[in-house]
């Protein structure tokens, strides 16, 4: 579009001319230009310049010439710049009113102007320039001037210069007059010519078209778009009709002219339609334009001109579409159906850019064809010199100079062809085509049409390739190939790869050349249709059409290349082949995402998931190739992450000696097999493999060496995670599996776990039964080497609650150590004792975790240590001990072997301590709290103040081991102070060597006398300490362990009444004895007592059965009975019940307290007369 002249591209603007008073020109022209609609100004500084406006003189008597063309090339420009619609003569008022000479000058100037404008319809305006309003001319002068100029009164206006508001007014006046006159002018001009069109008073079609064009242009001047459009279309139609009729010019040039005119008319129509927002109409019009001219190719020699022109139509329309703001109407829908035959893309400039590029390509092809065939013809004709564009649009002529005379001569068609060819040769179409495709590519990409963009991109790349810019071409083709690979379009991918292959050949990259070639040879192209049609060869890539025979040929070529043999095709390549050989041998790497997976796919599966070290397992290596021809692999190397496992397979049919040159490393295991890969058939190779190193054994890659110089390193894939081959997965073919075993081909892995070697070291944990709370429990750990030396040994100890709980108390406020079980220390064997200091450095012991290093042990040596664990709570604990060591001292092969042992240890309470209080025999203090709180069972033990009670502490061995007690004591809290409050003395149960041994389940009782000396509701009695040791034969060095238990607090109160009974311990049948009950009132109140005595058949008694008594404060009341026993043996005394009325409390003596033994006769031992009352 940029090639079009300015006047064609922009809408026409009215033209006015001003003459004289040059100082005002800038103001006026500026103002007019800013008007709406704008008016262009042709400013002539003085009247001498008016000849510019003059018409060309035409001999009025000459006969009308037949039209020599359709449009004059400069007609539009003339009307835009040289033929004004209005001419204004500016005169200063003082010149008009001045002396006669000046007046005369004014008159002459006017006359001249009139004569210049004679024959045109240009309107004349006279402007009187006054410096101020007061300079007004007289009426007479005005009339005289008007008469001279032969104009209407309103065409004579006054322009006031110096007053700004007046100036503005004057300018407005001028502008409105101008615009009115312009309108009139263009309307009349238009009408004048329209009449000719309507009355058909023209002699030829050319004139008809010209008139239509003129009418339309005049209408455009008036902004009458509808009329302009109508006449442009009329002109266009008339032009189309004359295609076959006119004979004015030689046929080739005739067609060129018609197309040039059509182009201009079409451009105008499209612009008007698009600016009017009629996108659909514009596109429809464009289609009509294109279809009606597409076939007008003309003779073969100038076909390129046609395609050039045709391409330009698309380009210009694309640019118009891009620059016009008109969008696709929102109401438009149903693209591509009968309701709306247009499709989405036809609204996109990219579509037209792409077509423009296509036709430009067409032009290049026809040009190339022409240049290659008609070289001779052109030389004969010779290229005419100084060819210029002729007067008429679309015509060319030769400028002929001879001496001073310059003549313009018409060209013959032959000359024209030579000229056009010479011109066309000068252009670099390739870059133009690339630019167009790039525009289309970017636009399609933005619009989200990746495939179309891809297509443009591939066309671009082809142009680069044609222009021998191989690196650009390669880059573009690579991006294109990516999409085709992804969607599996083999045929189009073939094309891109064919170009890529050639690009890499040209760029001398052997690796890429081989890669692309192999990929091509492995593409799923299975047809072999027809012979190659050479005619459409240009549509194919350099590798030819996608057929199976081409695949074969390409593979053969590559394989010949890597064996350094020459194929006929490669020889044709000539010097480029030399480039290829220099970086041989080639190594192609195929990873999981490589498109070359179709060339060679390696699937590796171990038959097992885990294996013992040094024991054999099976591995299957399966290879698949989709190449067109069978591939013979010379050597296959299977590589693992443990290089010692690598092995090689040599083709059994090949002589090993010929392959020996690659066997640089003699240590590698060598296998032989038939290594022939048939297309689409798995080659399965199963081998036994051993690994001595524990850990992961993974097959990393399979390297195939083919012929002398090709090496394909293929990343191994597990069958379980292997993806389908990208291009082949859509092919309808029999599915085969990499491994015969169906299960393995779904779940096989290229990784196997090699287990650790069997440890040849014993780790022994001993335990002496359950652990007892409080003691330092010792677990001996011993390490005995049976076959391995122990280097860098490390023993890790871990304590875990067997029930999964924490070994730590969550409560921080725990009175003593918050750990229930803790690892106290690890002690070495006695002989290691001296090096204790440095062992301690390595030792790390936490409460439940410990690490200790083990010294170097030779085979057969052993080492032991003791773990000291202390239980604070009875808990079951898992002890985990693991020994990590390496069997050799070589740090480089630091392979660690771990031995794990665990042991569950119960933590038990050694002794259960219980206690109980006993009141003195036959003496019962009344404790009020006992009466009151019958309901609360867990009430504190109550003791009477200042009364001695007996405390029995029982220690029971609750373990399964015998214990030996060493002491039992009660320690008061608060030391000496508490002595005043309570006195506790041991009164029995002393420990002697005989009773110290406590077998499991046995009790030991200690007796203590307790006498509270203070009346206190909460009195601490102290803590029981039971010291013990395990009763073991060898346990001399054992420490005694104290188990302690705090006695609960007791309630001490003053008893208001104390009842004691006195009775002899034994009686003799028939001999009376006395029985007293003493009631002591320790209150200061009078206490009423009721008592009763039941009958007994064993005794005869004297005294009241029921009675009441009053006990005076602080005194003692005595009730006495006399009894005679009637039968012998232990006998129940008659039941006596004492009740206190005040406290509603009754006392019945216990059975034990009320039992007396009756002898039948006087016993013979001399222990008589002892009192039955037990006094504490």
């Amino acid at each position, binding site marked *: 579009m940029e090639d079009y002249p300015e006047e064609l591209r922009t809408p026409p603007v009215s033209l006015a001319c001003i003459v004289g008073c040059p100082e005002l020109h800038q103001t006026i022209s500026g103002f007019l230009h800013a008007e709406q609609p704008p008016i262009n100004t042709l400013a002539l500084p003085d009247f001498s310049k008016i000849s510019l406006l003059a018409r060309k003189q035409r001999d009025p008597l000459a006969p009308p010439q037949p039209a020599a063309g359709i449009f004059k090339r400069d007609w539009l420009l003339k009307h835009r710049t040289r033929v004004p619609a209005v001419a204004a003569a500016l005169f200063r008022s003082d010149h008009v009113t001045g002396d006669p000479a000046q007046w005369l000058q004014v008159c002459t100037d006017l006359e001249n102007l009139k004569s210049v404008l004679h024959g045109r319809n240009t309107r004349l305006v006279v402007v009187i320039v006054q410096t101020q309003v007061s300079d007004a001319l007289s009426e007479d002068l005005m009339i005289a001037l008007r008469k001279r100029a032969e104009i209407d009164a309103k065409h004579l206006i006054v322009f006031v210069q110096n007053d700004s508001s007046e100036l503005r007014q004057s300018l407005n006046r001028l502008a409105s007059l101008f615009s009115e006159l312009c309108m009139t002018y263009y309307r009349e001009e238009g009408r004048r010519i329209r009449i000719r069109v309507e009355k058909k008073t023209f002699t030829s079609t050319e004139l008809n078209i010209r008139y239509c064009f003129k009418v339309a242009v005049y209408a455009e001047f008036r902004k009458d778009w509808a009329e302009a459009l109508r006449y442009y279309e009329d002109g266009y139609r008339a032009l189309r009709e004359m295609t076959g009729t006119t004979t004015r010019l030689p046929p080739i040039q005739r067609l060129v002219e018609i197309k040039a005119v059509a182009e201009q008319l079409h451009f105008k129509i499209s612009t008007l339609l698009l600016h009017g927002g009629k996108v659909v109409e514009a596109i429809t019009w464009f289609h009509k334009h294109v279809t009606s001219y597409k076939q007008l190719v003309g003779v073969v020699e100038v076909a390129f001109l046609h395609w050039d022109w045709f391409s330009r139509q698309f380009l210009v329309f694309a640019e118009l579409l891009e620059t016009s703001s008109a969008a696709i109407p929102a109401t438009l829908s149903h693209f*591509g159906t009968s309701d709306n035959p247009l499709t*989405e*893309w036809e609204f996109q400039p990219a579509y037209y850019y792409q*077509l423009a590029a296509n036709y430009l390509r067409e032009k290049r092809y026809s040009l190339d064809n022409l240049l290659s065939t008609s070289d001779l013809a052109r030389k004969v004709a010779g290229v005419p010199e100084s060819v210029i564009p002729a007067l008429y649009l679309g015509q060319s002529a030769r400028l002929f100079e001879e001496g001073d005379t310059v003549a313009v001569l018409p060209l013959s068609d032959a000359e024209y062809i030579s000229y056009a060819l010479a011109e066309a040769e000068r252009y670099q179409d390739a870059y133009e085509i690339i630019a167009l495709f790039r525009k289309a590519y970017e636009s399609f990409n933005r619009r989200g049409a990746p495939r179309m963009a891809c297509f443009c991109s591939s066309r671009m790349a082809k142009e680069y390739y044609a222009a021998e810019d191989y690196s650009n071409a390669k880059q573009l083709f690579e991006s294109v190939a990516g999409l085709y690979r992804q969607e*599996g379009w083999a*045929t189009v991918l073939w094309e891109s790869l064919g170009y890529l292959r050639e690009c890499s050949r040209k760029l001398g990259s052997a690796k890429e050349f081989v890669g692309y070639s192999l990929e091509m040879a492995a593409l799923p192209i299975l047809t072999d249709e027809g012979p*190659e*049609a050479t005619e459409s060869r240009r549509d194919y890539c350099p590798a030819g059409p996608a057929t199976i025979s081409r695949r074969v040929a390409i593979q053969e070529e590559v394989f010949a290349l890597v064996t350094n043999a020459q194929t006929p095709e490669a020889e044709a390549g000539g010097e480029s082949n030399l480039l290829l050989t220099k970086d041989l041998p080639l190594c192609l790497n195929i990873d999981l995402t490589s498109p070359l997976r179709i060339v060679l796919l390696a699937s590796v599966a171990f038959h097992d998931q885990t294996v013992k070290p040094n024991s054999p397992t099976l591995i299957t290596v399966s290879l698949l190739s989709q190449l067109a021809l069978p591939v013979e692999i010379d050597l296959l190397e299977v590589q693992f992450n443990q290089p010692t496992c690598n092995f090689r397979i040599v083709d059994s049919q090949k002589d090993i000696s010929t392959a020996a040159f690659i066997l640089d490393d003699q240590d590698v295991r060598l296998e032989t097999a038939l290594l022939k890969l048939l297309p689409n058939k798995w080659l399965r190779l199963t081998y036994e493999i051993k690994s001595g190193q524990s850990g992961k054994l993974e097959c990393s890659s399979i390297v195939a060496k083919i012929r002398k110089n090709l090496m394909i390193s293929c990343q191994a894939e597990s069958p379980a995670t292997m993806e389908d081959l990208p291009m082949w997965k859509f092919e*309808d073919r029999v599915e085969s599996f990499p491994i015969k075993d169906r299960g393995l081909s779904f779940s096989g892995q290229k990784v196997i776990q090699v287990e650790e070697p069997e440890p040849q070291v014993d780790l022994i944990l001993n335990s002496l039964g359950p652990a007892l709370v409080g003691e330092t429990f010792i677990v001996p750990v011993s390490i005995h080497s049976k076959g391995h030396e122990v280097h860098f040994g490390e023993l890790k100890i871990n304590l875990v609650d067997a029930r999964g709980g924490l070994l730590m108390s969550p409560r921080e406020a725990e009175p003593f150590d918050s750990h229930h079980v803790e690892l106290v220390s690890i002690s070495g064997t006695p002989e290691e004792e001296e090096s204790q200091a440095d062992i301690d450095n390595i030792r790390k012991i936490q409460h439940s975790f410990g690490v200790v290093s083990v010294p170097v042990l030779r085979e057969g040596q052993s080492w032991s240590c003791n773990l000291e664990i202390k239980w604070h709570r009875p808990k079951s604990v898992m002890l985990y001990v693991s020994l990590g060591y390496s069997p050799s001292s070589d740090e480089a092969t630091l392979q660690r072997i771990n031995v794990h042992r665990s042991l569950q240890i119960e933590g038990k309470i050694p002794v259960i301590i219980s206690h109980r209080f006993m009141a003195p025999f036959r003496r019962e203090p009344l404790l009020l709290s006992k009466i009151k709180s019958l309901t609360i069972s867990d009430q504190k033990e109550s003791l009477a103040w200042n009364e001695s009670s007996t405390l029995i502490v029982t220690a029971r061995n609750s373990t399964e081991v015998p214990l030996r007690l060493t002491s039992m004591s009660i320690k008061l809290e608060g030391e000496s102070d508490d002595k005043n409050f309570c006195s506790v003395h041991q009164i029995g149960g002393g420990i002697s060597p005989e009773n110290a041994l406590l077998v499991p389940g046995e009790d030991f009782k200690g007796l203590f006398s307790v006498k509270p000396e203070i009346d206190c509701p909460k009195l601490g009695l102290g803590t029981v300490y039971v010291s013990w040791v395990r009763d073991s034969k060898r346990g001399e060095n054992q420490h005694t362990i104290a188990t302690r238990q705090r006695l609960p607090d007791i309630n001490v109160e003053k008893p208001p009444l104390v009842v004691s009974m006195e009775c002899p311990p034994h009686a003799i049948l028939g001999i009376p004895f006395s029985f007293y009950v003493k009631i002591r009132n320790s209150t200061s109140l009078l206490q009423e007592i009721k008592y009763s005595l039941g009958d007994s058949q064993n005794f005869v008694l004297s005294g009241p059965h029921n009675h009441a008594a009053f006990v005076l404060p602080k005194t003692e009341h005595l009730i006495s009975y006399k009894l005679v026993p009637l039968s012998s043996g232990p006998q129940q005394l008659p039941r006596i019940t004492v009740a206190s009325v005040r406290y509603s409390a009754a006392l019945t003596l216990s059975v034990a307290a009320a039992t007396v033994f009756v002898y039948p006769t006087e016993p013979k031992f001399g222990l008589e007369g002892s009192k039955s009352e037990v006094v504490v």
Partner: protein
Amino acid sequence: MIVCVAVVGNQNNPVYLQSFTEADDALKLHHIVHCSLDVIDERVNNPKRSGPTLNETFLGLLYPTENYKVYGYLTNTKVKFIMVTTDLDVKDADVRNFFRRFHAAYVDAVSNPFHVPGKKITSKSFAERVSVIVKSFGSTAA
């Protein structure tokens, strides 16, 4: 005249592509069919601008290219049928009819128990049936 028919799978992979021209322009037709997938994508993604009803399978003219017109059809399983013709004046009804018959042939072909869905159609009888449909397209249009 129909120059090419194609079945494109739901991963935009070619399932069946057959050209019916004497000239050796198979490659060009491959490109045309591949590019037309963009239009199908666009039509499918902007349903309000595409066919009159939601269930319309016929997509209409996809785009005119230099010498060809490309028509599209989308089945419920997102398999695309693409037809390339050189006829400039094609009746909508003819194209619809063509696609309907083509669809029936396709359904029969993929109903073959030996056909694996998504793979290329290599059935000879399908190819024969398609060529019959293609040939009859010209005769009904005339």
